């Protein structure tokens, strides 16, 4: 998909590293950044998750407060790098979780992260490994005097973690302080910004946030520009075999008229949409996956059925774009009752119009299905569908298995999808409104999201 130039926001995530000594307040700075950045898929990754599992002997030492958790080698930097790299490339990453009670990784408890557009990596050694540093767009060091760090650590460990004073102080002197001096504080040199963390650092964080916001804005403008570019290539969509427009029979025309008529009652509207959706789905399923089978088919009168076709409706799955794709749900369940259905929530930012992926539920092993119906009631800019297709390809679905099913589309939107996918996905559309009709303002309704609003009765 990238060959054609579409780069979804999560293949160029903005990565921020936040380092600093133990007790310096880096965690609260990182948390503040995450909560204030206000972009979907802002992800906080703590390097604490990447502590190496301990051997039995080391575990004994740990239980006796005698194991050095503060040396750089105690963290699995290779794995941390792999995870962040994976996210940087727009792929999934599985983050381990570490149990401080057992001093081991919690088995089978992996955090799957996918589609991050901003990643904050936080930990004492966040700015330590050169490979991680190379992936970062912004490096922040949170600085506090070591006396203050000790005070914070003691408060935290004694009050919240139930440790005793003696153990705390011996750990500080034996491990934390020497490592901080030797390994952590020198990473200050590679930081782009150093935030003081003595009392109030709100001005410093505010300045950083402004900087991050302006960077993200640039990125989103770039994304929008690319989306626009995709629509401008001169492709005549009428000649493409991948685009299947519903035959404009009398019945389809009547249904379409009913759906556009503003005087149609809600009851009728839902009924007529379901009817049209059923016809459209039936078209999209015409070349249903079939399987060769050597079994004979015999009728109740013991006649052999020649050339039996074994259609396998279980080889089809669907992914709806919330909420307008959900308009197809009723007709879909009537057509294939047991179909597995995934959902994606993609919404356009109200200020910029940039599409943003908010959440996703993908059927397990989606790549093993023969066909994936990607459903949306309307395509206007095409941005959401392009993003959804990228999500599917990131989940190893091949482009030629994707069938976009849409009731009402604009020609520009369709052309963008064709360009973004090199014409590899099949598109089934109830109606496509030409550029000409849009330009001359004859079909303003085709640029308004009225289908889901009418179907669900919430504007």
């Amino acid at each position, binding site marked *: 998909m990238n060959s054609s130039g579409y780069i979804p926001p999560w293949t160029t995530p903005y990565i921020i590293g936040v380092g600093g000594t133990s007790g310096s307040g880096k965690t609260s700075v990182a948390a503040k950044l995450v909560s204030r950045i206000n972009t979907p898929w802002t992800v906080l990754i703590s390097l604490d998750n990447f502590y190496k599992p301990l051997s039995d002997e080391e575990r004994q030492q740990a239980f006796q407060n005698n194991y050095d958790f503060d040396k750089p080698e105690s963290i699995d930097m290779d794995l941390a790098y792999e995870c962040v790299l994976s996210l940087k490339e727009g792929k999934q990453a599985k983050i381990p979780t570490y149990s401080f009670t057992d001093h081991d990784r919690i088995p089978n408890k992996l955090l799957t992260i996918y589609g991050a557009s901003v990643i904050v990596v936080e930990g004492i050694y966040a700015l330590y490994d050169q490979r991680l540093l190379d992936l970062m767009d912004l490096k922040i060091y949170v600085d506090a005097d070591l006396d203050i760090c000790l005070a914070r650590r003691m408060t935290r460990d004694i009050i919240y973690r139930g440790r005793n004073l003696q153990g705390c102080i011996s750990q500080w002197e034996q491990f934390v302080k020497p490592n901080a001096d030797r390994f952590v504080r020198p990473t200050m040199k590679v930081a782009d910004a150093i935030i003081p963390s003595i009392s109030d650092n709100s001005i410093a964080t505010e300045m950083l946030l402004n900087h991050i916001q302006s960077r993200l804005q640039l990125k989103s403008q770039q994304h929008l520009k690319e989306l626009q570019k995709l629509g401008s290539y001169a492709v005549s969509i009428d000649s493409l075999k991948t685009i299947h427009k519903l035959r404009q029979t009398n019945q389809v025309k009547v249904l379409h008229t009913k759906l556009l008529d503003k005087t149609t009652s809600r009851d009728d509207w839902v*009924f007529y949409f379901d009817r049209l959706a059923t016809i459209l789905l039936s078209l999209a399923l015409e070349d249903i996956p079939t399987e060769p089978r050597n079994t004979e088919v015999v*009728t109740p009168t013991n*006649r052999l*059925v020649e050339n039996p*076709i074994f259609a396998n409706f279980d080889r089809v799955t669907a992914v709806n774009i919330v909420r307008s794709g959900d308009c197809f749900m009723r007709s879909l369940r009537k*057509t294939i009752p047991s179909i597995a259905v995934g959902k994606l929530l993609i919404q356009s930012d109200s200020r910029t119009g940039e599409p943003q992926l908010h959440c996703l539920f993908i059927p397990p092993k989606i790549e093993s299905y023969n066909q994936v119906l990607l459903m949306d009631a309307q395509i206007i800019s095409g941005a959401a569908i392009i993003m959804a297709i990228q999500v599917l390809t990131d989940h190893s679905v091949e482009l030629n298995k994707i069938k976009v099913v849409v009731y009402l589309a604009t020609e520009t939107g369709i052309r963008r999808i064709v360009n973004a996918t090199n014409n590899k996905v099949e598109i089934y559309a109830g109606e496509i409104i030409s550029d000409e009709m849009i330009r001359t303002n004859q079909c*303003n*309704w085709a640029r*308004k999201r009225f289908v889901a609003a009418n179907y669900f009765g919430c504007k």
Partner: protein
Amino acid sequence: MSSTQPFPNVHLLAQSKQLLGLYTIIRDKDTIRSDFIFYSDRIIRLLVEEGLNHLPVTPKSITTETKQKFDGCSFLGKICGVSIVRAGESMEQGLRDCCRSVRIGKILIQRDEETALPKLFYEKLPEDIADRYVFLLDPMLATGGSAIMATEVLIQRGVLPERIFFLNLICSKEGVDNYHAKFPNVRIVTGALDAGLDENKYLTPGLGDFGDRYYCI
């Protein structure tokens, strides 16, 4: 979905992989009844929709929510369904799914034990049926005996032959010929044309007794 030579006025559904797959399921004697009903209903829905495609429309101008004029169209006439009891009744729901408040008449035709000919036992049709387009419903067209008798009833009640659409899932070539010899202007909408009839006048390959499979066995 044009007329299929040499069967004028037969509208055969596009023989897509999906449709052939659905037919394979309902022909199979090992298909359990819940599946038989589900997949038959799917085919029936396609037949009804194809029938509706042939109804005439009239231009209609409407106003959209963006206050723009849109030149669309609406159906011209009134329709009704007429099912041949019992198997034809299985197709009523498919018609209702598309036309919610459609009127449905019934005709019962059974074989007279003495003459072995079809005999009309019962009819109940909308009073104004002469003004309507009629979807005649019977899943199987074998020899055409009962369909011919039912169509005669409709024409006697004043329905114009060109306003009758006979919807069925499977027909035999022989049945189509017999039917057309009598009613050249009635259109048949079907999904499968089977080779012929066996010595018991069953369609081959067919799918057995549709009514039995849909209702009780």
